[in-house]
Each structure stands twice: as C-alpha cells, then as structure tokens.
C-alpha cells in the first residue's frame, strides 16, 4: 500500500462515514469570513482532527496574537468531499485549507486553487529552503499552487529482538540480504504462518510505489503514467517472489486477518508478528506511545544488488496548504499561509505530529533530537534519492487503478508486468 494511502487512512479515518452523510455538512461552515472591528477574519478549514488539530490551533493562536489586522478562525472539518464542494461556488466558505501534494495537479488544472507565484514574487518568498521533493508535488506546469508543512516518507522498520533470535547481526542493505532475512524471519507452524519476515502495514501487499522507485522505476514519465516501467515491475516482483509465492496468499491472508488496529498496541509490528515493515516517520512517536518496550530499529529500504546509487531511495508526500480560488480574502490568506509554513510554525506543528518538516533548514533542528530513530527519516528526506510522484491531474484515477493492480499482484491473479500493462491501457483514457 502506498505511502499516500497510508496517510489518507491515518488522517481521514472515519471520514467515510461523514462522506456518505453527503454534503449537508457544508451548511455548518457556510458562514463566510469577513471584516469586523478593524480586523479581517479569515476562515481556515482544516482536515486534521484530535491531537493534530490541537497542534494547529496552537499555531493559529500564535499567529492571531501577532496580528493587528487579521484574525484566523480555525475549523476542523475532516471531510474531503465537503472541502471540495465548498470550493465549487463563486463565494467560498474558507480562505485557507490543507490537503496533500497529490491533489495539486487535479485542482490546479481545473482552476480550483490559486497560483501562489504572484505572492511569492511580490514578497520575495524563499522557496529554495523547501525540500525539493516536497515542493515538486506543489507545482503544476511550472507554477506553485501549494506550500508544504509536514512531510511523510517511509523506511524499513525492523524488530531487533527477532533479528537476534535468528542470528542476523545487522539489518539488510541489499535486496539479496533482504530476501535472506525475510526467509529466516518467517515462521510457520502446522502450515500456518506465525511470524512474517516482511508484511504490509495492515494486510498483504507492500508499498509498491516505493518498491518501484527503489528499482529506479518512474510512475510518471514526461507527465504521462508509466506503470510498466521495468523498475516498477521489478519492485513488485521482489515482494511477490520472496513473500507471496513462497508463503502462499491464502496463508498470508489468514495471518494478517488477525492483525490488530494499526494505531494501537495491537499493531502487528509492535506485537512481533511482523519482523520487518515499511512504514512512515510517524512510527517513532506511535511506538513511543503504544509499544515503548519494543526493541526496534529503522534503515533505508534496501537497494538492488550492485546498484548502490539507488541507496536511500524514499518517496515523500507532503501535507500542504492552499488558497481556494473562491477565497474572499486571498491576500490575508497568503499572509497566514506564509506564517503556517514559517520555521517556527512548521517546527511546532511537525514536532507535535512527529512528521518531517518541509524546510531544509529544519532537517538538523534539535527539536527532533528526542524522537527515537527520527534521524533516519530526516536524513532520507534530505537525500538526493528522495523524490515524489508528480502530481498530475490524473493522479487519483491512476492511484485507484494502480491499487486494483497491486491487489491483483498480491493475490497472484496477475503478474506485475500484466497488471501494470492493464493500468497502462486504462491510463490512455484518462484525458
């Protein structure tokens, strides 16, 4: 399962319920922003909830305290469909909101969100301090439409105790070492899997987008979907050959069906059911909270043998802010948006979430020093092999079709080559 998908699940868990309730929620946030008492009130509708929303409210409070002419009113509304619908009218119900870098192309191409180029130029706003892979997803046809705050990437988490038990001295760095470790760390009893060397975070399958990238695969080439890139096929083949075909999809299905909730002490990696898992930089904070005694480590995802130049490959997915085209106060929204992605606000927010900061100048910041193993993710983000999948207008449909293909690959219904060829055919009609 891809990083963005994991992130979506994490952030928008339960939002489907609200979604099915329809767009009625919109009425609750239809009160437009305006001016009062000499200050302009702008509405900041964000998708975050719970602790993440609290962290954001701290940032909002700081901004408001520093302002003499703008007041920001934060509203937590974790419903993407409501967010989308609110941006369809001529008069918007919010002035700033958040989403992911992945929506940039789809929204920018339809004129839903404002290009920030004019503001960036006017204020001589320093874009160069943003991590290149994160800002890449905020661009569409050369213009910047969003600005990133918190970034997600993934690495290989491993259980040190389980490694010790089978006598593996160090985590794998190459694919052959990885394959060997998976074999040694997978245990079966009476035909049933009791411990899996490598698994997906919540089921069978793995982050196939990242696996493709590790093998040098490109998911878009020159703005067009390129699922059949050989690297993408090789990445999926690695998992299929070393896990699925070896241990059987039905056995793996049965094993993963007993997994507990991802965000709980019953997470299979915390429970020692998975010896290795590819997961995101939020895990150090989660493990501290849910499994403080877990003896774990993290390393970059291994690279193909003999291709050391592919070491440290990681895919990033930034959480981003934008100004909708129908904002009533875009200039004030820009002032606030600038503050949201300033070093101070970014540090406050990302430390609270244990997410990576989107600014290069924060990658070595001491604020992150107390989070165990976080340095690996920070280093990966700063590496030349950090990249993001370009945010093209077809992204969501492409992701959906790739999801279907991933599923077919995991179930051995189709080979990676055949499954991705099918996506390539479907992609011709994306427009």
């Amino acid at each position, binding site marked *: 399962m891809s990083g963005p998908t994991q992130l*979506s699940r994490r952030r928008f868990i339960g939002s489907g*319920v609200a979604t099915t309730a329809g767009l009625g929620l919109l009425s609750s946030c239809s009160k437009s922003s305006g001016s009062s008492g000499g200050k302009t009130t702008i509405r900041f509708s964000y998708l975050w909830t719970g602790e993440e929303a609290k962290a954001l409210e701290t940032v909002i409070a700081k901004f408001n305290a520093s302002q003499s002419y703008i007041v920001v009113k934060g509203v937590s509304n974790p419903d993407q469909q409501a967010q989308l619908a609110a941006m369809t009218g001529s008069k918007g119900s919010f002035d700033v909101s958040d989403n992911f870098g992945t929506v940039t192309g789809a929204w920018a191409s339809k004129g839903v969100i404002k290009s920030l180029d004019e503001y960036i130029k006017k204020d001589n706003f320093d874009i160069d301090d943003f991590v290149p892979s994160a800002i890449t997803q905020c661009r569409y046809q050369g213009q910047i439409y969003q600005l990133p705050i918190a970034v997600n990437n993934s690495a290989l988490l491993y259980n040190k105790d389980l490694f010790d038990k089978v006598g593996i001295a160090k985590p794998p760095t190459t694919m052959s070492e990885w394959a060997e470790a998976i074999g040694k760390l997978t245990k079966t009893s009476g035909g049933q899997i009791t411990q899996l060397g490598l698994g997906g975070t919540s089921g069978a399958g793995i982050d196939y987008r990242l696996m493709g990238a590790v093998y040098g695969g490109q998911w878009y080439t020159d703005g067009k979907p390129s699922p059949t890139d050989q690297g993408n096929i090789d990445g999926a083949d690695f998992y299929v050959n070393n896990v699925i075909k070896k241990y059987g999809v*039905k056995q793996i299905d049965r094993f993963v*069906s*007993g997994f507990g909730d991802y965000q709980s002490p019953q997470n299979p990696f915390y429970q020692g059911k998975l010896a290795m898992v590819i997961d995101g930089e939020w895990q150090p904070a989660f493990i501290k909270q849910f499994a403080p005694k877990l003896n774990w480590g993290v390393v970059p995802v291994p690279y193909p043998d003999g291709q050391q130049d592919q070491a440290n490959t990681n895919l990033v997915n930034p959480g981003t802010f934008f100004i909708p085209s129908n904002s009533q106060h875009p200039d004030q929204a820009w002032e606030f948006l600038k503050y949201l992605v300033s070093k101070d606000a970014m540090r406050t927010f990302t430390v609270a979430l244990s997410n990576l900061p989107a600014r290069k100048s924060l990658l070595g910041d001491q604020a992150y020093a107390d989070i165990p193993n976080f340095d690996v993710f920070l280093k990966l983000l700063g590496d030349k092999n950090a990249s993001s999948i370009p945010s093209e207008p077809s992204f969501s449909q492409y992701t959906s079709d790739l999801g279907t293909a991933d599923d077919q690959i995991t179930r051995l219904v189709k080979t990676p080559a055949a499954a991705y060829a099918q996506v390539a055919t479907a992609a011709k009609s994306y427009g």
Partner: protein
Amino acid sequence: MAGPILVSLYYSFTEFNLFQSPKWVGLDNYLSLFSDPKFVRSIINTAYLTVIGVPLGLALGMLVALALNFPVRGQPLYRAIVYLPAIVPVVTATYLWRWVFNAQYGYLNQMLGHLGLTGPNWLSDPVWTKPAVIIITLWGIGGTAVIYLAALQQVPQQLYEAAAVDGANGWQRFWHVTWPALTPVTLFQLIMGVIAAVQIFAPTFLLTQSRGNAANGGPGDSLLTYTMYLFQNAFVFLKMGEAAAMAWILFMFIGLLTLLILFSSKRWVHYGSE
C-alpha cells in the same frame, strides 16, 4: 425537484468536473462506461448482491415471520429480538460485523471451528466478500419479517379451517392459503428490496474502508458496487458527467426492472378481491 433532475440529465451528456463549465460530449459518457472494465465489474458485483441477496432476504423474512406467528410463550420477546437488528444503524452494524468476520479471531470462524470447519477469509478473499455483505443484510431482515407478520395476521382463519376440513396438510395449507395471501406484500418487498440492493453503498464502503481510501473496491474489486463506482467517479475522479450518466442508467434500470416485476406480478400476485 425537477430542476436538479433535469440538470443531472444535462450533465450526463457533458464532461464536467464541478469547477469548470460543462462541455457537451453527447453520448460519450454512456458509451465509454460500457467499455470500462470497472463499470462492468460494478454491475456484476451489484447483480450478485441483488440476485442472491434479495430472494434470500425475502425467503428468510417470510420463514421468520411464520415462526414468529406461532402462538408460543414469550412471543413478543422473540419478535423484539428479531426486529432489533433492523434498528441498529448500518454503520454500527457493519463495524460490528467486520469484527465478527475476522478470519482468525472472529466469532463466525470460531463457531465454524467448533463444528470442525475452517472458516474462510471473509473480508480479504474476493470469493467471500459478497457473501459477507449478504449475511450483513440478512441480519437486518427484521423489517421484512414484521411486514410479513402483519400480512400473516390478515389471513382469514376460516380459510385455514376450510382447508383443514378438506384434509389439506401443512404444506398444502401454506401453498394454497398462506402464500397467495402473502403475494401482494411479497411484491412490495421485492420491489423495495431490489431498489435497495442495486443502490447498496454503506456496508460495502465501510467493509473496504480499512484497506485504504474511498477509491477502493475491496479485494479484487469484489465489493466495487455500482453506487460505489458512481461515488468514485463523482467525488474521487471528479468525473461528474460520467457519474451523472451512471445515475441515469441506474434510474432507468430501476424503472424498467420495477415495471417488469409489476408486469410479472399479474401471474403470481393474488389480491383478496380476486
């Protein structure tokens, strides 16, 4: 009400993404849907749930109603127990069933284990996901059963007495007295059941939710129902034109199917005055 309906018809002939003006494309949306494998898959999935789920629901609802009609001690309690699931919100019920269906720790497979059977991977094996949805819908047949029960109580006792005098056995009494009396209600429940089944959304959406975002159709797209694909086209892919076309196809299909059922009812529905 006519306004939005007509606007959606217009949108179905356009390329429309919510944000830009609709562009007239004629029948393109309709034509492209029929060459879209996911559209076809969504029809197959929905047909499976309808063709198997609806008759099963009606049969089971009728059987339960017949059982609840027996004058036994504690009858109101049994009736309440059967009806109770029907008032549990679908979201709650689905989450509950996700737990029950867990292949390793779920109650269902544990019960099957006691019988010496190995339960399937209900929610991760494409073969078993749709039966799982049907089981969830069958769990809530209390509403169907209550309507049948009301109809059963309208059957004149004299007819049973006359049948008994004629020497009819249990099956003959059911076939010649009870069933004809129940056919008008069956017609109503069949139409309502079919309409609900072809529009099924919440259980399939919620069962596949843990596997990712809204664009998911479950393992092997086995739970990609018609309305789920419509939802994806509209709100995930921003293809409002295709979504509107899907809505109109569904609307026309439901209309046609209802007419066919009504037409066929002349052959099998018996009204009291006849």
